[in-house]
């Protein structure tokens, strides 16, 4: 359990980047994981697929058969449908990603759903040219390997194998660099970062003040650090009774108190407020306590 947690946290730490805004503020950015990017791509392809299914169903409703489109068309209406069809194929392959990534969110619907966006490396402005470049490269990275696999490219013998190796280079490219760049990102100077949205939660110390009921001394408050404070904060925000009881028991054991049942929330809220006040006053003097071991 702990081994897994450390593995996850080091993997996360490796994805942290810093962006210095013109105001001189360091904004933390986290590189999107390769798995979520692959998932976002699959989602986008799925949306395109659904779009085409809807398109054909609508054609079916107005009484047109797909087979007619490819054949020798004579009526102008069918010709128009054929043109629309070819253009739709073309734009879904090249235009879909381009259009959405040029928008204000800098993300295709798939990326947006998974909380990611495209950004320029090194804190520059994301430009139209960058988005075009990264999406033109998408063709060799996504569509050509996909068509190759669908067309049974392996049967073609030596040249098929060579083509497979060649395309595998593009597909495996994101695994060979720290920023999980695909070839298109490299050429365009972009990367994909996590762009989560957060809601402003309520302030913690607005709850009724119990500092008279529970008084914590210096010795009790210096047991824990910032990490424990944040765990306690999330427990309080979740509001799970069983978890609160367990945490309250653990704290009491640690600081040598003995408390009855039924009053956990009040106890934890005031312990949280006291601990935070203690740690924050330390911060003001430049002393930080990372966790209980430090």
């Amino acid at each position, binding site marked *: 359990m702990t081994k897994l947690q450390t593995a996850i946290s080091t993997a996360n730490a490796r994805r942290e980047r810093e962006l210095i805004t013109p105001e001189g503020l360091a904004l933390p950015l986290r590189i999107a994981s390769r798995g979520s990017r692959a998932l976002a791509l699959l989602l986008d392809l799925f949306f395109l697929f659904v779009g085409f299914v809807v398109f054909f169903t609508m054609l079916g409703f107005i009484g047109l058969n797909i087979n007619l489109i490819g054949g020798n068309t004579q009526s102008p209406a069918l*010709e128009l449908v054929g043109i629309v069809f070819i253009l739709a194929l073309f734009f879904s392959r090249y235009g879909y990603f381009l259009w959405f990534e040029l928008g204000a969110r800098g993300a295709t619907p798939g990326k947006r759903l998974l909380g990611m966006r495209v950004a320029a490396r090194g804190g520059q*402005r994301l430009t139209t040219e960058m988005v075009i470049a990264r999406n033109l490269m998408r063709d060799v990275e996504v569509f050509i390997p996909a068509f190759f696999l669908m067309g049974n490219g392996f049967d073609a013998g030596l040249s098929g194998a060579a083509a497979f190796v060649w395309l595998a280079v593009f597909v495996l490219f994101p695994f060979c660099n720290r920023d999980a760049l695909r070839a298109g990102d490299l050429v365009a100077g972009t990367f994909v970062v996590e762009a989560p949205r957060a809601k402003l939660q309520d302030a*913690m110390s607005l709850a009724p003040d119990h500092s008279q009921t529970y008084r914590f001394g210096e010795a009790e408050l210096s047991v824990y650090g910032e990490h424990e404070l944040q765990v306690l904060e999330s427990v309080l925000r979740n509001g799970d009774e069983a978890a609160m009881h367990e945490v309250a028991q653990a704290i009491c054991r640690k600081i040598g108190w003995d408390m009855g049942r039924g009053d956990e929330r009040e106890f934890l809220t005031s312990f949280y407020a006291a601990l935070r006040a203690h740690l924050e006053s330390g911060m003001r003097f430049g002393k930080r306590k990372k966790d209980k071991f430090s």
Partner: protein
Amino acid sequence: MALDYLRKIPWFRQAEIVAPDDIEAASLRSDRFRLEREVDWQRLERIVTALEKGRPKRITDDDLLDLPVLYRKAASSLAVARETSLDAAAIAYLDALVRRAWFQIYGPRETLTGWLRGFLGGGWSRAVRAIWLDICIALFFMVAGTVVGWLLVSREPDWFYALVPGAMSGGREPGADPEVLRQSLEPTANADGLSIFATYLFSNNTGVAILAFALGFAFGIPTLLLLISNMTLLGALLFVFAEAGLGYEFVAWLSVHGTTELGAILLAGAAGIHVGRSMAFPGQRSVLAAAQGAGVRAAQVMAGATIMLVVAGLLEGFVRQLVGEPSARLAIGGAMLAFWCLYFAGMRRRQDRAV
């Protein structure tokens, strides 16, 4: 204003942001700090959300005027909160908010139409002029490919079948009846079905051009191979027609759209070579920086090549099938070539001189 009127109807009214009235009730100093400022943060969030949704018209004038101030306030709140507050939820919120605002404020400044105007009015031709060396390289290999195709088929006609896929030749093969060859160059009687043909050609050729660009990533070598293999095909066909005494007619037939289409493929290939060359020989810069600079320049050239292919598809689908006279065809093709050359050489952006 109509919008002001709409706001009177409850449905359209934006939720008011109310200041917390019990700031003094908060026992922690860092919480009071946060409560005093959270109205501004929420105002900023509302503006950023409207920008992200692409509805800047929803932002009131007051909000818009205050946007820079609100952004700097939030950024400085974040800096202070990181050093004085241990409220993880508020810091996470500010982090996300400032990041979102940063992406909006320092995001793309221009709209797509604005970009297109700048692009057609000088950005494209400047990018093309910037990669002149790569255009020369690509041109050299295209000519070489044509010559190779010609020489191979003239020595050994069997090469033709290796170079030209069976479906494409359609009876146009070495030693074919000149009458059959002449027939294949004739315009068709009417324009039925031509628009669908033109659309198909466009999407197909653009795919080839994008491939030529994208393959440039591997130091440009696959791009060269692609250019050569496409041009040997042309050389082989050229030989077949010249052998039958139809060289002039074939060139005229090809030139209608060919000057535009081969120009687009030339540009796409050159863009690919440009990226590959910059990565192979980055000079003083790092490979990443060199690839990025080249990639952005090449992307402009590519966007333009797509426009050229639209024009080529129209010329190929309509004009070539409707105009039959070789001299007229040559005149159209030559005019297109002259137009593109003049455009790339002469189109300068006005700001170029100003900056």
